[in-house]
């Protein structure tokens, strides 16, 4: 890729093969290991009040990796990370990769049933978490059939008692004192799985997208190429690491040797802006809800002159917001992008096209191609609406343990043995090949950029005794794009809106909780008994 060649011209030490034995393929942990050798004292991470260099993160990751090996972690094993955005999470990702295992990040706001579902679904052997989670969130039952969990690594002492005595429990701090900082033996090749990223599916249960090292390395470099990142970039991210958009900020920065400031949320915008000023941030990835908040803030008191680029993904920005953002950040280049977890990033709009095509999310990312197909599988030309099909080395490996869903999404491509990804999203293409998002083929709801499966919410509603029927739809919302509306039939009038919402809060992440609840005597159905949702929206 261009940026690597460019860097190598100036400094031979920047050759991307540093740190890897001859003939070795590139793995994700090479992002850290190469930067730790090339730029050991450079600031890599600002997070939770700590400032760490590449060398410091590399040593911590090696110590944790050696502990994981001692705990029995083997090539291909799955290890779940369930903790707040923290240094321990970043170290955990690289430590797991260094053992040849597969990391799975579950957002710390995920509720008990879903966390335990994911642990069971991927057959995790270990969990990196905090004491609070061990005491209150982890399923207390021990060692039943299919229980694969063998150990916990706990990053804070508070409440770190488990009612599962068969689990080995190690403290993160003790590991850092006791284990060697030498790099463990390299065991994986780039076709091995690196991570599972769980995403909402229309069936209701989250599905783990299998990403191998080569997928991640390829798409990381492709995105770096069009964003033209270099070592001087300082990226500030408020996006969760459990989403690919957030996770890749880490991968990209460690790949090009920049600095990353990680914040746990955008809840307090003024604090984020303050941090952007202090760290002289050059790159800020966001989603439409974040930008709509920023547009309401008077930025006059902040010096944000260092900002070189802004990226938007997860949902399209309204053209009026694009204009206002450009007025507000005149020195920054704005990138409109589109992606899905199954291919990470898919499309980006070259910034020079923003004026002439503000509603477009652009063209295929470097090194990949896309086209539109109709329902019969025929390729479509300009100005027709069809499903976006994606071809390239960023097409992930499928869904963990779900060959049926995998076969539906990842289908044979033009070359023998290859697979392309059917996105499930409908687009229109203009005469010059630029894509415009039209809608989804399934009924997934997008709340401020987060995907919500109506089925997942309906399943929770049916879990409340007395709810007879439930239907969940998306309705337009001025701030979040869409909001969730639940229409329910209940057996007795004691089931109030508050009771329903309390139940949802106990079982669903906040963004999945319905904003509106409507009670009906019955729901309209087709002759085959399927609920007709059209009229609720």
């Amino acid at each position, binding site marked *: 890729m261009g940026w690597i060649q460019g860097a190598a011209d100036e400094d031979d030490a920047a050759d991307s093969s540093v740190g890897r034995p001859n003939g070795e393929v590139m793995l994700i942990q090479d992002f850290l290991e190469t930067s730790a050798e090339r730029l050991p004292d450079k600031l890599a991470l600002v997070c939770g009040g700590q400032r760490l260099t590449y060398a410091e993160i590399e040593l911590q990751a090696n110590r944790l990796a050696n502990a994981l090996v001692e705990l029995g972690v083997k090539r291909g094993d799955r290890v779940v990370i369930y903790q707040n955005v923290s240094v321990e999470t970043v170290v955990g990702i690289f430590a797991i990769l260094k053992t040849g295992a597969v990391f799975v990040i579950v957002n710390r706001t995920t509720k008990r049933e879903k966390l335990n579902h994911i642990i069971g679904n991927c057959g995790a052997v270990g969990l990196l978490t905090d004491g609070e989670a061990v005491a209150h969130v982890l399923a207390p039952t021990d060692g039943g059939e299919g229980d694969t969990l063998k150990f916990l690594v706990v990053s804070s002492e508070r409440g770190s008692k488990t009612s599962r005595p068969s689990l080995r429990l190690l403290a993160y701090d003790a590991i850092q004192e006791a284990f060697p900082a030498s790099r463990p033996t390299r065991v994986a090749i780039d076709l091995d799985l690196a991570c599972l990223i769980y995403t909402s599916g229309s069936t209701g249960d989250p599905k783990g997208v299998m990403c191998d090292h080569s997928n991640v390395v390829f798409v990381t470099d492709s995105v770096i190429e069009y964003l033209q990142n270099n070592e001087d970039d300082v990226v500030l991210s408020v996006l969760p690491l459990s989403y690919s958009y957030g996770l890749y900020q880490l991968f990209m920065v460690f790949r090009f040797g920049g600095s990353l400031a990680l914040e746990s949320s955008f809840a*307090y915008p003024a604090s984020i802006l303050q941090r952007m000023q202090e760290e002289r941030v050059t790159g800020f990835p966001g989603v439409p809800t974040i930008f709509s*908040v920023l547009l309401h803030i*008077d930025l006059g*008191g902040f010096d944000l002159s260092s900002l070189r680029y802004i990226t938007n993904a997860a949902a399209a920005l309204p053209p009026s917001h694009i204009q206002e953002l450009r007025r507000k950040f005149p020195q920054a280049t704005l990138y409109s992008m589109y992606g899905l977890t199954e291919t990470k990033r898919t499309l980006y709009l070259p910034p020079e096209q923003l004026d002439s095509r503000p509603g477009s999310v652009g063209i295929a990312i470097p090194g990949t191609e896309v086209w539109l197909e109709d329902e019969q599988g025929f390729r479509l030309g300009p100005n027709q609406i069809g499903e976006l099909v994606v071809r390239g080395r960023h097409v992930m490996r499928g869904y963990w343990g779900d060959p049926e869903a995998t076969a539906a999404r990842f289908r044979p491509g033009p070359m023998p043995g290859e697979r392309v990804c059917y996105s499930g999203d409908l687009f229109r293409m203009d005469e010059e090949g630029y894509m415009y998002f039209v809608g989804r083929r399934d009924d997934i709801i997008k709340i401020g950029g987060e995907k919500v499966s109506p089925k997942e919410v309906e399943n929770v509603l049916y879990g409340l005794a007395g709810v007879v029927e439930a239907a969940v739809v998306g309705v337009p919302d001025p701030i979040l794009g869409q909001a969730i509306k639940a229409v329910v039939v209940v057996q007795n009038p004691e089931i109030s809106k508050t009771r329903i919402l309390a139940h*949802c*809060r106990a079982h669903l992440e906040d963004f999945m*909780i319905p904003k509106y609840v409507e009670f009906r005597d019955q729901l309209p159905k087709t002759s085959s008994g399927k609920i007709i949702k059209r009229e609720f929206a």
Partner: protein
Amino acid sequence: MELESQLQQYLAENILFSENGFEYSNDTSLVHDGLIDSTGVLELMLYVESTFGIKVDPLEVTPENFDSVNKLASYIRRKKGGLDSRSRR
């Protein structure tokens, strides 16, 4: 009703959907302890504006002013008293 109790009641009924009231201390961190997310902070801001008749500058939506019942109550008192409560460092 005392300001703190009023805030507790709003949080319990509209954000936590609790039938047992606000079961936390008035110093509990709303965001860090997972009671609310960033959308919840936005809702809280709109509630403060509409209920107490004060204009909340988005730059005042900081942990120092918003992140617990006690902090929010003293922010509202300062605003109603007409003091400059902007806390930016």
